[in-house]
Structures are given as structure tokens and as C-alpha cells.
């Protein structure tokens, strides 16, 4: 019993520093913005800031725009990253080896620099326009198309990395066994590979959603002026309009969006570990 106590204390002691830091650096700011978002001009409790963000057409359009861009980006990234991961898992070709070596590069380029490079590449008289002719150039910069493209560019490396590791943990014996039993490629995919990797897909989706819904740099520099992504709108309310309460309520709303996705992730994790315990 004493030994158990000791190890419990040790465990707590090890967790304590990071928990305390979390408390000071995360919990307290979260709490204070929740409080600010419910505080009116006369320090009284009020719902007016939430009323504002859910009735003002400007913000409603921004919320709709944010959700559309986030969901579309997540789906596109997931589809592309999953295809790359499958290809890299099962192909031994030189091309695959090269992709394997290079797909992580975008992760190491700082965001702002990547965005400026992207703008120079795709703007109306940029590199691409010079090659294909300015009159054939579709509007990409200052357009939602450009935003989707740069989101894909930023998020593919990490997502692919996650998915590859999931796919690589599927033992070859399973795949070979299924093949020997006469499974064709579709069957193999639907009944073995997808079920064995879909949980990692959920994890990737969670990270993607949280990263894109709160993004600032790319939408600030590439998107149109309206509707805006929530991150941009929040910054504008905070530092240009000096509406600290309204931007707090926007932040709380975004926090709720992310925590819904987060709960979903935790729930699926718990379910899984329960299964393993049995």
C-alpha cells in the first residue's frame, strides 16, 4: 500500500508542473475571456455581445464563411493526404521514394514567407500568369480559391505523416493473408485498410479543423475583405474597433466549436481504450 501511495505521489508530482502552467497560461485566460464576453458597459452581466454576433449579418456571414472554408479545406486535405499516404505505403517506386523524402518540406517554411511566395506565384501578373498568359489566369489571390489552396499546402505534410504511420502499422501479414484468401483491391481497402486507419483519420481531422478554423495569417493576406474568417474578424474587432467584449464572445464561440470537435475526439479515444481493456 505504501509503495502504491508513493508512486501515486510521484505521478502527481510529475504532472503538477505542467498542470500548473496549464492553469496559469490556459485556464485563466480562457476564464477571463468568458467573463469579458458576458460583461456589459456598466460591468453588469449581459448577453448583448452574443446577441450581436448571432444577429449581425456581418458576423453571421463570417461564421458561415469560416465553416465552409474549414470543412472544405479539411475534406480536401484529408482526401489528398490519404491518397498520398496509401501510395507511399504500397508503392516501392522511385517516385514514391522521392515523395517520401520531400513531402515534409512545407512544414519547415515559415507561414508568412510561404504566403508571400504563394502570392507572388499566383497573383494576376505573377509567375503562373506569365507562363499561361494573363488573360487565362483565374482569380486566386484575394479569393477563397487561394485560401483553400494555401490551407491544403500548409496542412498536407502533417496529415500525411499521421496517416502514413497509421498505414505502416498495418502488418503486411494481414494484407497478404487477405490477398491469399482472394480479396481484390477494393475489398482489401474497404474491409481492412480503411477500418484499420479510420481512427487516425479522425485524429487528423480534429487537428485540421482546429488549425484551420482559427487561422489568421493566410486568410488575412489572401482572402477577400468580406466575408472574413473568424480569426481575422476577431482581430479586427479587438484592435481596430476596440470592441474587446465582442471579440471575446467571438473567441468563446470559436472555443466552443473546437471543443465540440475535441470532445468527439476524446470520446472516440475512450471508446477505443475501453475496447482494448476488455
Amino acid at each position: 500500500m505504501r509503495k502504491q501511495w508513493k508512486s501515486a505521489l510521484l505521478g502527481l508530482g510529475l504532472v503538477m508542473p505542467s498542470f500548473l502552467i496549464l492553469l496559469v497560461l490556459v485556464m485563466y485566460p480562457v476564464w477571463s475571456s468568458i467573463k469579458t464576453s458576458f460583461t456589459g458597459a456598466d460591468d453588469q452581466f449581459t448577453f448583448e455581445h452574443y446577441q450581436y454576433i448571432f444577429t449581425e449579418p456581418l458576423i453571421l456571414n463570417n461564421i458561415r464563411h469560416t465553416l465552409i472554408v474549414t470543412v472544405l479545406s479539411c475534406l480536401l486535405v484529408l482526401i489528398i493526404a490519404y491518397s498520398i499516404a496509401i501510395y507511399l505505403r504500397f508503392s516501392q517506386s522511385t517516385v514514391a521514394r522521392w515523395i517520401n523524402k520531400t513531402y515534409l518540406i512545407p512544414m519547415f517554411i515559415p507561414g508568412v514567407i510561404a504566403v508571400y511566395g504563394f502570392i507572388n506565384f499566383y497573383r494576376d501578373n505573377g509567375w503562373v500568369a506569365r507562363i499561361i498568359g494573363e488573360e487565362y489566369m483565374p482569380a486566386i489571390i484575394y479569393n477563397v480559391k487561394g485560401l483553400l489552396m494555401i490551407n491544403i499546402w500548409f496542412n498536407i505534410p502533417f496529415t500525411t505523416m499521421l496517416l502514413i504511420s497509421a498505414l505502416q502499422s498495418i502488418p503486411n501479414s494481414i494484407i497478404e493473408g487477405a490477398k491469399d484468401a482472394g480479396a481484390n483491391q477494393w475489398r482489401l481497402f474497404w474491409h481492412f485498410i480503411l477500418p484499420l486507419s479510420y481512427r487516425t483519420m479522425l485524429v487528423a481531422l480534429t487537428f485540421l479543423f482546429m488549425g484551420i478554423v482559427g487561422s489568421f495569417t493566410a486568410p488575412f493576406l489572401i482572402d477577400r475583405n468580406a466575408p472574413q474568417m473568424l480569426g481575422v474578424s476577431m482581430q479586427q474587432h479587438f484592435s481596430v474597433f476596440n470592441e474587446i467584449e465582442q471579440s471575446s464572445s467571438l473567441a468563446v464561440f470559436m472555443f466552443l466549436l473546437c471543443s465540440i470537435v475535441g470532445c468527439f475526439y476524446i470520446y472516440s479515444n475512450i471508446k477505443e481504450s475501453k475496447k482494448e481493456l476488455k
Partner: protein
Amino acid sequence: MKWFNGVKQIVTGVIIGLSALSLVACSSGNDEGDTSDKTEISLYSSGSKNVEEFWEEVIPMFEEEHDHIEVEFVFVPSGTGGQSTMDRILAANESGNDSGVDIYEGSLEDILRGKEDGDIFYPLTSNNIENLSNVQESNLAGANDLAVPYRASSVVLAYNEETVTDIPDTAEELYQWIKDHPGRFAYNDPSTGGAGSSFVLSTVYNQLEEGAMDIQDESIMEEWGKGFDLLNELAPNMYQEGVYPKKNQGTLDLLANGEVDMIPAWSDMALEQINKGLLPESIKLKQIQPAFTGGPSYLMLANNDDEARKEAAEELLNYVLTTDVQEIVIDQMYGYPGIKWDLLSEEDQEKFADVMDGYRIFNGGELGGKLTEQWQKEVAAQ
């Protein structure tokens, strides 16, 4: 495990070395503070990179000439809470404490705020700041005897000489030019930079009577409609049928690339970039009538009840208004000088010939933010 021990030794060595260094650094700092009889003052400033570079050049020059004064320079980059310095001064004044801020570089709004709250700033006249008599009188009006307007800049029209033949002289002609040349004009999102916000401000207030820019009462917002109608009317003729790039630099980039032919821009930013070759030489600047907005930058002396520091700070303010420093303002910041034009060399006067036509000062206080908010709702979201 051998390599691990090696690493451990190195890490320990580094930590010991660093702590020893930091101790040395501390003690040497203390020695200096204890033994000298220098007056230490602090200068809080904010803005873009060029402001920081300006002070980093001027302060050592000042300290060399006045070896009994030491200036601590604190720079708060714009957009990272510059207002907090003002809040700090106000809070210290309320509680009767020393704010630690002696000289504060701020805006017209800060002066008004300081005036409302009483003795936040020391009064400044040519009695205590001799060179104040050299300052341009039009700039002194807003200073309320509480500040030194030591430099200025304004928004001007920047255009490409090679593609623009009918250069507009007035605001009306500019609006007509925009309509005649769809897609060739751009102004930046007013929430992200002063050039775009000056265009929006001027366009809205050009529709109102003269003197409207000094009104701080919110009732004037009802009269903004006409200006916003004009902005909406112009919108389809803007760059990409209504795209407003982010930041002052966003439109300058478009002008440099040749994607547009005309933009509103800050005089100092545009002059600097033309001189450094970042903008092609075919880019020219011009002020139209009625002019875009602009204004001086002010230096204020925060009241900390310390006579020695006050006198030292006054000396610095006086020094900033000498021709030597004013030439740095002109040559390196490409800003308008704070002192009268005729005190400067003819060569310097010539540099500003294109943009010397002045500027209007917007004195609407918080209405500026409200205007941007309305722009976001009515023009951007159109």
C-alpha cells in the same frame, strides 16, 4: 551511456557558464548605476521600423553632446499595445506614483486624453523649450501647449507616370479617374493601415461641410451616408472589382508590380521606397485638393514630479528640434520636418516640393474606428 555523460557535462558546463555571465552582467550594470551622477530619463515610442531606427541614431548623438544625461529608449512596435504606455501614465498619475515614463511619443488623441485628465503632461512653451519657436505654427495648434510636433507625414496620391496621363488635381477628378479606368486604382483595407483609412475618411468627409473633421459628436455619423454611397459606387471600378489589400504595403506592392496605376500612400513610406529602389522610378507622388489626411507626431513630457528628470527631458525635446536632427527626419525617415521650411536647406525643400501642399488633420477621435467598422459592414461586405 558514455555519450549521455558527455552530454550531461556539456549541458552543466553551459548552464554554469551562462549563470556566471548573467551575474557578471548584473553586477556591471549595478556599478554603473551607483557611481554615476547622471540623470536617467526614459523615452517611450511606438510606430514602424523607421521610427525605431530614427531614435537609435538620435539618442547616442544627444548623449554625446549632453554627457550628464542618459536616455533609456523603449520601443513598442505598432499594433502591439502602444496604448498601454498611455494607460500606464494615466494610472500612475491617478495613484500618485512614478510612471517611469518621461517622454512619450503619441498622437493627438493622447494629448486630448491627457488634457481631460488634468496634469498628466507638463506644459511646453518656448520658455522651457527654446526651439519651439521654430516649429510650424499650423502644427502647434493641436498641441495645446502640451506637446512638441517634431515631425509629420501625410497620405498622398502615388501614381505611375508612364501609364497615367490625366493626373487628377482634385478629389472630384480622382473619383472620375477611378470610374474612367476600372481596375487600375486600389486602396488598402482601412482597418489595416492609415493610407486606406485616409482615403475612406477623406471621401466621406469631402461630402460634408468644412470643419466636419473636428467634430467628435457621434450625431455626425448620420451624415456619412452620402460618402459611403460614393464609395460603393466606386467599388466595382476598384482593383479586381472591389478587392482591398491588407496593410499599407499591400497597395504599394500592387503599384510596384504594375497591377494598378494609382493608390493612396503614406508620403514617408512611398518616398523611402522610391529612394531605395523598391518602387520603380516612374512612381510619382502628389497631394490633391482637398488634401488627404495626415498629421504630426507629438512628443509629450509626462509629469512625474521630478525636477531633474524634467529638465533633462526638456533638453532632449529642444535637441530634437535642431536642424541637425530635423535633417535626419528628412533624409532617413522621409518625414516632413517639424520646424519651418525656410530654416532648412533649399535642397531639402525641393525634395518635398511634390507633396508640400499640406494635409488635413482628422480630429474626430473615436469616430475613426466607427468609420472603419461601418466601412467593413457597408463597403467590404457589399
